[in-house]
């Protein structure tokens, strides 16, 4: 049975010039999917043996880790700076002084004999110490110091506290007064070089312990390539 109700008219076909209706935009996710983030770097593994090796000899920890080029750069760079500074100071600007005849350091009323007092009178050694075994002769000289002798038992005058000097010293005697008076500032600049070398080795030790400040992703993974994330 046919209905008498006329059918609703169909909408006119779109003209060729009319734009096609756009699909609704996809919902914006509130959280960026994990696959679109750069892959996270693996957590830092602290390498204490390598740090200890880099303290002993600058760059040795990096060589132990397989970063041989960087290790050699640290070794030659820091030893060049340290021994160049010692050469500028006529090899007499790294020592830990004997303070047995000086007033000891007092902190909060208590006297601090030994190494703390020595560092109080020669704070430069707190920086020089971190170059590693190259500064250990100063410790040997300190522990075996005999004010009646001009040289120490093992290393001779190397890294031994120079005598202060008097007005009656012969001209060939190396004294602290003579070094500072005749050094044309190079003696003082020399110990600055040795301190800088020691402090720079602290950065090298940290590089061996935890890696460089800006780490690279492992080989085969690029930060902007999510497909390479595992």
């Amino acid at each position: 049975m046919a209905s008498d109700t006329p059918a609703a008219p169909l909408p006119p076909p779109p003209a060729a010039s009319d734009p096609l209706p756009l699909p609704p935009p996809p919902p914006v996710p509130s959280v960026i999917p994990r696959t679109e983030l750069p892959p996270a770097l693996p957590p830092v593994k602290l390498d204490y043996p390598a740090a200890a090796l880099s303290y002993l000899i600058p760059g040795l920890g990096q060589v132990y880790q397989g970063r041989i080029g960087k290790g050699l750069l640290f070794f030659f760079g820091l030893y060049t700076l340290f021994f160049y500074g010692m050469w500028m100071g006529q090899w007499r600007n790294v020592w830990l002084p004997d303070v047995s005849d000086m007033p000891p350091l007092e902190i909060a009323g208590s006297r601090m004999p030994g190494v703390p007092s020595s560092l109080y009178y020669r704070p430069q050694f707190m920086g020089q110490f971190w170059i590693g075994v190259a500064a250990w002769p100063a410790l040997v000289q300190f522990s075996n110091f005999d004010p009646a002798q001009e040289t120490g038992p093992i290393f001779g005058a190397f890294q031994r506290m120079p005598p202060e000097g008097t007005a009656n010293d012969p001209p060939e005697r190396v004294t602290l007064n003579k070094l500072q008076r005749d050094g044309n500032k190079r003696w003082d600049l020399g110990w600055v070089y040795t301190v800088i070398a020691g402090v720079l080795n602290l950065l090298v030790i940290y590089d061996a312990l935890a890696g460089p400040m800006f780490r690279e992703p492992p080989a085969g993974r690029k930060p902007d390539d999510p497909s390479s994330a595992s």
Partner: protein
Amino acid sequence: MMPALLAMSIYWDLPVLLVVVSLVYAATRHDRWDKILREGLGWGVRIAGFLIGIGLVLYVLSTYI
């Protein structure tokens, strides 16, 4: 000024410090050699510029004042 610079001076010792500090510091920040050398060069230029600037200021102060 030139005779003073050509004389035995502590200023001739500064390039050793500048090169070593720049390269070692840059190498503690990166592992790749291209980045180490680029950052080391940058630090070297900055440190040299600072030292030259300070030197010029001191020279002017000591000469004209």
